């Protein structure tokens, strides 16, 4: 899985391309950890190109949430597709994240 990164102002947008499964999930969590340190938490996860996630993918998302939680932050997800939203709803994890329509709106939440 490739993780595209771009800046929306001072906010880093992580945009994984492909399903977040298996070792890719660990890679995403690892990259999020690095970006968290570099940006002091100013990053969002653009899920537009995540077709689906498995249990390890959900764990990775939770791991990122737990990374942010001690500093009062919540993982900002944007453009989550129907499959991902359904997976989050079914597992009761949807409320663990902040959901945004797109990366621009997510970045604006840092204002």
């Amino acid at each position, binding site marked *: 899985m490739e993780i595209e990164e771009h*800046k929306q102002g001072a906010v880093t947008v992580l945009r994984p391309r492909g399903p977040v499964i298996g070792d890719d999930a660990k890679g995403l969590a690892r990259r999020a950890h690095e970006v968290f340190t570099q940006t002091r*938490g*100013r990053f969002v996860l653009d899920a537009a190109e995540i077709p689906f996630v498995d249990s390890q993918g959900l764990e990775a998302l939770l791991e990122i949430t737990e990374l942010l939680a*001690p*500093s*009062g932050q919540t993982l900002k997800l944007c453009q989550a597709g129907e499959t991902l939203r359904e997976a989050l709803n079914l597992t009761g994890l949807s409320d663990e994240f902040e959901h945004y329509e797109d990366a621009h709106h997510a970045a604006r939440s840092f*204002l």
Partner: protein
Amino acid sequence: MGGIDLTRSAWARRWLVRGESLIASTAFACAAVLLCVTGASAWWMTDTLERDAEATRRAEVSEIAGVVASTSELLLAAGETSALRRIVMETAQTRGVRACRVLLPDGRVVADSEPARIDTGEVPETWSGNASGDAESVGLLVRRGISVPGRGAAMCELEIEPPGVHRARSAVLLGSLVSGVVGLAMMLLVYRRFRSRLGAIGAVREALLELAGGEDETAVLAVHESFGPEAVAWNTLLAERDEGRRRDTDARVEQASGGAMVGGEGSAVCDLLTDGVVLLDTSGVVTYANGAAAVLLGVARDDLIGAPAPAPLDAGDVAEAIGEATKSGSRRRDVVDVAMDDEGGTVLRLGVRAARGVPDAAVLVSIEDVTQLKLAEDSRNAFVAQATHELRAPLTNIRLYIEQLIDEGEEDAALRARAINVISQETARLDRIVADMLSVSELEAGSIALREDDVRLDQMFDSLQLDYVAQANDRNITLRFEMPPKLPVIHADRDKLCLAIHNLISNALKYTPSGGTVTVRVSVGTDDSVAIEVVDSGIGIAPEQIDKVFERFGRADDERVRDITGSGIGLSLAREVARLHGGDITVESVLNEGSTFTLTVPARERPARAA
């Protein structure tokens, strides 16, 4: 669990063990009695069966003896010894008796089922002695008297086969014994398997009843762990309850003593904040820092607390403000913005004030990440400046031509025509700038929407060509429109799509130097999807700047474009419009050679119209 006193449970344990043993002993006694009753029943049943079988058999043999006796009388009277002996032998063989014989009163055997026992060759003509005609049973023998007229009395004797019921009875008794032993063994196994568990459940049950009765002491409620895992789990629950109470008590004590920020509820509340909170004592040592402070300062929380104030609290205006607040205890709040030396360009806003009434703390420093806010402010300021400039340029042209018209317009028809043409172009330019701004406002408010209808692309590009030919000629730029012979009618928002293409073309003209070329190329897919390429031979974009061109209010950090005006919203808006149509805009560029922006609009289904 190690701390739980189990002195009380010894009594309960003895009671429970004794109770459990009584139950077990009673169960075993009942099983033994049941086994004995079963055995006795089997014995009685088999004995009864044996007696019945023997009586029946004896009656049968008695009847057979009667028949043999009657036959013997006739044969002895006729002197047919051979026939008599054959009948006796056949009787023994076919009637299931062990032996059959005919004897004279003196004991001599006339006929026997075993010929070897016959000791009378010929039967005498007469013989003495009496014989009873009634049947008589002696042990296994059934005897019947025979009276041979004119010759004397004799006796028919049949020996009954010993009954086989004894074997059946032995088998039944043996079976009962084996099943009883197996049953007892299984009971023992089950008992041993569940003995400890039953004991644990009983002990826990008793503890629960005591708890329900108001007992609260862990030492009283605890159960000896030798009862097994259930007892261990119960004791764990009790220990966790005690630990929770202890923490609760500690937190309350902490709160009551004013130390809520260190480990109590206050700390948890502060960890929910996205802004950092740092408390410093009079010597500048950190006594508390919340999670956000640790992240924003880039220092692990454990390393922060108890250490001197880290950067940027230890230098410059911040250190000065902290020193002042420590010394004066003033209620005033000093705010200092600090640019951090990191790759993210972080800007922190630090608020410093005296921490009155907070134990072990002299100064409170609040930390806010204003990086994005600063960037947004800078972008807005730049946008306002650029927008002002963009608006001023056409307005200046319009004003100049109107003044010329007022002064000389009545006499110079050519001037009038040129002025009207320029005013028309500049008004259209103003219109686009205002439309851009309105669209940006809609985007910011999240209220932008498409007003779709059929769009004739050939008409739209004809209009675009007319709009830009003059501008391109003025700047000595070759503007080419390369269209397929036939363009489809697509379903889209004409105004917004036109605005997006306007922005791409005007952008290309803006960054292409005199003598250059701008080509607008349209290609149509088989499904009526449209790709519009705007290719210029302009200054190009450095690879590291490509991401910035689509940022709202963002402009490339390039010396070459400093003098070129632009609001920084055109490309961002164009891409938003493309995405609203389900398409996108991509860019390929080579520095100093030119750029190609490609806007794609997929084929969109027309909504069904009412007839």
